[in-house]
């Protein structure tokens, strides 16, 4: 609807309104301590699953994001901290899954080799 204000005015007001919404949002969110704990645990699991060896990129990303989340927590940027911690958790879980999957693949190929050897032995006996 046509108001008395120009375009530039509306754009400026929108920016301020968005910021107001953001600031309003920030002010009401609690500290994501639970998320931080969950993410730290996921990182530890990933490390013990061998994530450093099998998924170094994901492990580094997870660690880095946890560090930024901690700093965000210190600055009370709780929304930011929560998002960083969530991403760190996802990275850590991915690292963990990659490590587990890689190990399972190795075991599977070993057993396939064993099976092949067994079959060859049996065929040789039957000749």
């Amino acid at each position: 609807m046509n108001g008395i204000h120009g375009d530039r005015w509306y754009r400026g007001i929108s920016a301020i309104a968005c910021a107001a919404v953001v600031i309003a949002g920030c002010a009401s969110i609690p500290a994501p301590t639970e998320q931080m704990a969950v993410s730290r645990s996921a990182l530890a699991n990933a490390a013990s699953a061998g994530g450093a060896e099998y998924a170094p990129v994901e492990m580094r990303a997870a660690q880095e994001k946890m560090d930024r989340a901690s700093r965000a927590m210190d600055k009370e940027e709780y929304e930011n901290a929560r998002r960083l911690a969530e991403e760190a958790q996802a990275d850590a879980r991915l690292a963990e899954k990659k490590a587990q999957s890689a190990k399972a693949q190795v075991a599977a190929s070993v057993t396939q080799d064993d099976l092949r050897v067994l079959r060859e032995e049996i065929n040789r006996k039957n000749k």
Partner: protein
Amino acid sequence: MKNHRFAMSLLAAAVLAACSTLPASDSPLAQARSDYSSAQSDLQIASLAPNELRQAGDSLDKANRASSKGESSVVVDHLAYVTKQQVAIARETAGQKAAELAVANASAERDRVRLDARTRDADTAQRSAEYSQRQSEAAQRSAEYAQRQSEASQRNADASQLRSEASQRSAEASQLSAEASQRQASTERQAANDAQLNTMAARQQTQDAESRSRRLEAQLKEMEAKKTERGMVITLSDVLFDTNRAQLRSGGVRDVQKLADFFKQYPQRNVMIEGFTDSTGSNSSNQDLSDKRAQSVRTALLDKGVGADRITWRGYGEAYPVASNDTAAGRQQNRRVEIVVSDDGGTIAPR
């Protein structure tokens, strides 16, 4: 009232501002949607990691709602990022599960392969056992057959034994007959020898006979014997007798001696003495003279040792002249004694 409208329009503007832009194709949300879509259509991920996939789907819903609500790119990008990582988690989880299944299957597969092998071995053993069974049955039948064969052979052997004994006896018989043949052969050889000797003797005899015969011929020739149909004839002439008498002169005696020797040499020859006169004088006196002259020769032969059974005599008087009685010479020729020598068998054909 101006404030309410102001806030409302701001809000509407914000929503419009957010809704009016679709996410760019390379934006995090677009990538997250694409990732999720791929994973959702992946059968392995859908079946092996359904929970992880659903979690990613929930995150994508949140991201889409945030995007359509016009939330800031920080929020939307964050949710898109989480979605993307969760899709990757689902993918990795599916891979892990698949590998674990392969490991579990491998163990079952190993057991199945081993079981197959044992089953095959058992089947092979079964077939071997059946084969051995049939073999042993065949061997059994072979043994029975061999048994019968050996019994038959035994009977054959016994028969052969008997035959060999029979052969033995026949061989002995042959031996005996061979010995008999040998003896017979030696007998025959002996006989042959004897026959040969006989032949030689006979040949000798023949030769002797021939030589005798030649001597006989010679002698007869010497005595001027003539060959006639009746045999050899030796004529003792008139001059060998005293005239008109039957007494032999010495010449006649010598001739008769030769005759006697001849007849002693050839004992199988007989002699017929026939006396003849000429026609001078009477028939009766001629007959008598011819008889006496014949007898005289006979007596002389007897004296010389010739057997009486060999000598026959006959007087013919003036019959059978050999020359004309009209001349003295003829008449002398007619006055004769003929000695007929028989053949080998002693036969003299009658006149």
